[in-house]
């Protein structure tokens, strides 16, 4: 007989992935759906890749609470799930004497939030970041901030969830809720499942982790009609690490709208520059624009004047899922808080909304809160005897020294076959991802997992080779292989076959 799920999670960004992973600990039958062809394709896939300290979040907001708690969870998680994370600290840099008072304001806020920070002198800032604008007047240093690889963290958490029994369905788009038929109550009071483009799925709980689309999901349940997500687009530049290397995370003093255009080093050694903040209408519009690129460049050069446009190797844009949820506990009016709730009006829904920065940092804390909310709602949440909190990363050729590389190649010659010439990604790594617990079946999926195609040539060398490997390993025709799912195939026909 058809067994309904205990929990259905909508959305496979970092918040959905952490929620799936945290819930996989308990004896629950869990379905996790994602409308795209891979996980980590939305907001989580394109952002500043920072784990924020939490000094600047609005005091007493849910954002501040989740940021600080989430930040503290990253070390243990990166160890358990074997993903990269470096707590290198972050700096807010004042340029010129006029900007110095802003550091004191931020420092006061960080004290309210219980986040240790210190103001450092200009000279010390110049020592830490030799390329900094010489007009630096001081900086606020937050030692608990860090850099991460959002793709790596999300994939690790997702993989661990799947290994612990969570059923992930890609290309599955939420359309509506299914309600318990009732003559006595309002017909829309108890959720019993969801309708998707792939059919109906029944479950006792639905977790709305739909990111940019979380407002539309909750509106389908008749909840929070005033809540609205306005996508705020941020564009970025990636610099060639052979041409410029910055050492730290550098923010300008913040504006009312955003943390500003930052310059940061990344786990891959490439300096990342951006983002701007532009409110747009279309929740899928990740186009980069000429105006946006100029804006970033002007902003970034304020921090690092020697940045040279000729050393840009990649340009991308991401969308922040900015909401308008008011904070009821805050001392001043604040309308950009997270929503993390089991709404009283309906039964069977956990609502997560307004998941913009610092949601990446906060994701583990949000997942932890979801567990607590379910327990509070009477779920017994019995821990599985065979739950495995650990997940092991697969070999990464470029991270090994020569002796280790030689040993790996001796074990499996496919690791000696370089497919991506800039990042030195091997056939062995690609094949391993195609057959991983969450199989990578598109070019972009392999890119997110192996970092191939992210270097100077932007995949110009590896693309035909990756199409071949995907076709071979998946038993498909090269014509079927796509960049990011159906409709994005690379090739249209063989030559000498004029249609």
């Amino acid at each position, binding site marked *: 007989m058809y067994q309904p799920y205990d929990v259905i999670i909508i959305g496979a960004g970092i918040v959905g992935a952490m929620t799936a992973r945290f819930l996989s600990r308990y004896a629950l039958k869990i379905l996790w759906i994602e409308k795209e062809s891979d996980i980590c394709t939305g907001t989580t896939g394109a952002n500043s890749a920072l784990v924020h300290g939490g000094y600047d979040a609005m005091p007493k907001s849910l954002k501040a609470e989740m940021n600080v708690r989430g930040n503290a969870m990253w070390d243990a998680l990166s160890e358990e799930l074997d993903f990269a994370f470096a707590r290198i600290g972050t700096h807010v840099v004042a340029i010129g004497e006029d900007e110095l008072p802003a550091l004191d304001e931020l420092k006061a806020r960080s004290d309210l939030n219980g986040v240790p920070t210190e103001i450092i002198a200009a000279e010390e800032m110049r020592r830490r970041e030799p390329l900094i604008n010489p007009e630096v007047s001081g900086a606020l240093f937050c030692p608990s901030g860090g850099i991460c690889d959002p793709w790596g963290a999300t994939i690790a958490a997702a993989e661990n969830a799947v290994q612990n029994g969570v059923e992930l369905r890609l290309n599955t788009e939420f359309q509506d809720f299914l309600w318990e038929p009732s003559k006595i109550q309002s017909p829309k009071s108890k959720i019993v499942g969801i309708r998707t483009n792939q059919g109906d799925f029944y479950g006792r709980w639905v977790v709305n982790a739909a990111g940019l689309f979380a407002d539309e999901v909750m509106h389908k349940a008749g909840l929070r009609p005033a809540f609205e997500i306005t996508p705020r687009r941020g564009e970025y530049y*990636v610099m060639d690490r*052979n041409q410029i290397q910055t050492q730290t995370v550098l923010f300008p003093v913040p504006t009312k709208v955003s943390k500003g255009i930052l310059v940061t080093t990344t786990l891959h050694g490439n300096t990342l520059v951006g983002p701007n903040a532009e409110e747009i209408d279309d929740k*899928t*519009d*990740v*186009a*980069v*624009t*000429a105006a946006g*690129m100029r804006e970033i460049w002007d902003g970034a050069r304020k921090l690092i004047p020697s940045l040279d*446009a*000729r050393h*840009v*190797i*990649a*340009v*991308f*844009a991401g969308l922040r899922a900015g909401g308008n949820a008011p904070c009821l506990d805050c001392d001043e009016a604040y309308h950009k808080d997270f929503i993390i709730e089991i709404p009283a009006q309906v039964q069977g829904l956990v609502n997560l909304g307004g998941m913009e920065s610092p949601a990446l940092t906060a994701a583990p804390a949000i997942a932890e809160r979801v567990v607590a909310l379910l327990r509070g709602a009477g779920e017994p949440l019995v821990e599985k005897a065979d739950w495995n909190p650990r997940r092991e990363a697969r070999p990464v050729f470029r991270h090994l020294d*020569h002796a280790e*590389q*030689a040993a790996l*190649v*001796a074990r499996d*010659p*496919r690791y*000696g*076959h*370089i497919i991506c*010439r*800039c990042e*030195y990604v091997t*056939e062995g790594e690609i094949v391993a991802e195609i057959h991983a617990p969450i199989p990578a079946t598109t070019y972009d999926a392999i890119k997110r997992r192996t970092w191939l195609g992210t270097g*100077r*040539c*932007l995949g*110009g*060398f590896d*693309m*035909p080779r990756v199409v*071949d490997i995907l076709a071979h390993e998946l038993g498909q025709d*090269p*014509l079927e292989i*796509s*960049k*990011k*799912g*159906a*409709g*994005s*195939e*690379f*090739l*249209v*026909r*063989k*030559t*000498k076959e*004029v*249609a």
Partner: protein
Amino acid sequence: MKSLKDNYDVIVIGAGPGGLAAAIAAKKNGAEDVLMIDRDLELGGILLQCIHNGFGVEIFKEDWPGPSYAQHFINEAQEVGVDAMLDTMVLDVTPDRKVYATGPGRGFVELEGRAIVMAMGCRERTRAQIKLPGPRPAGVYTAGLAQRWVNVEGYMPGKRFVILGSGDIGMIMARRLTFEGAKVERVLEVLPYLSGLNRNYVQCLLDFDIPLQLQHTVKRIIGKDKVEAVEAVAVDDHWNFIPGSEEIIPCDTLLLSVGLIPENELSQKAGVALDPVTNGPFVDDGFLTNVTGIFAAGNVVHVYDLVDWVTQAGLTAGKRAAQYAQGCYNVNPRYVPTAAGENVRYVVPHKLDPETLTEDGIMLQMRVTQPLEFPVRIEVRDGDTVIAKKAARYARPGEMVDITLKGKDYDAVRQARELTARVVAR
């Protein structure tokens, strides 16, 4: 598989036209053990995907397709006894000339060369380097990638193409795609003149009625999963978009032919200093870099327009690398620096040893900054003194300009403080 040694007189990295020539010349000039390493399955480099003709015009007075040109040198390399390690990617070169490489057949290898010739060629500029706005759908490729797909893999990446940039590969692909039944809507060039060779414009675009629009570019790409169209726009002399000139061109593929960059990541690992103008190493007239025993040949030094000159450079570098390996390279010469003068963007080599002129000529190769569509004079000067001069019918940025210093110039060169090249109206 033939067993190979791990110590060589000369190791050549890359077996395209530059590397093949360097290896052959090294062997012919006394180097006993010469090895070529290449990441592909066959020798020849990018020539193998260049199935169009036009190769060998200068050296052989022939009009060969790329693979035939390559085969000529592959045969010669085999005849003279050059070793080759194929399907092998070099990961690292150290300043003391250790080479680390890996391949699926041979595994991880560590080699050492008395001399090394860097011949990795160049790579294509991407949409990031030209800051092309829009989303990132499938269907935006460099022209060389499309060339590989069509000519080597046998697949078509689209049906309706727009090509941005009038580089040679782009124009050649416009014709190739037309042969394969695709529609090439337009070639757009942001500059007021052609980036590639005029002969390619005539033979690849004009002859096939493919429109070229100068001072036009792509304002944005349209399409989320796959390219659906591009928005083209006219630009003024300062590359500003001209309002009202926008035009949506439906297409499923945008090819980029917007320039090539010498590929010097390995050179940098070996400590080789690069010229920010060419993106290639600073070299002397024997193509020796700043690192002792490390030479560079071909497109890795600067981007050539004709393969014949790449071969010539490879022959010189290989000969000099062999001399170095045998301990008879003058490593402490009294160099004379070269400099880019009026209407010259750069000059290669960056410095030269006057003593070379007692044996060989030295070709100074340069690119002009501005096109001059009338008779010009190419001059090499020391201050106000003209040392060498040459006439040409025109000078275009897309076509390399050269002038050769000869034995008769020895005295003047030896006494010069600096050799300034200029290309001016006659």
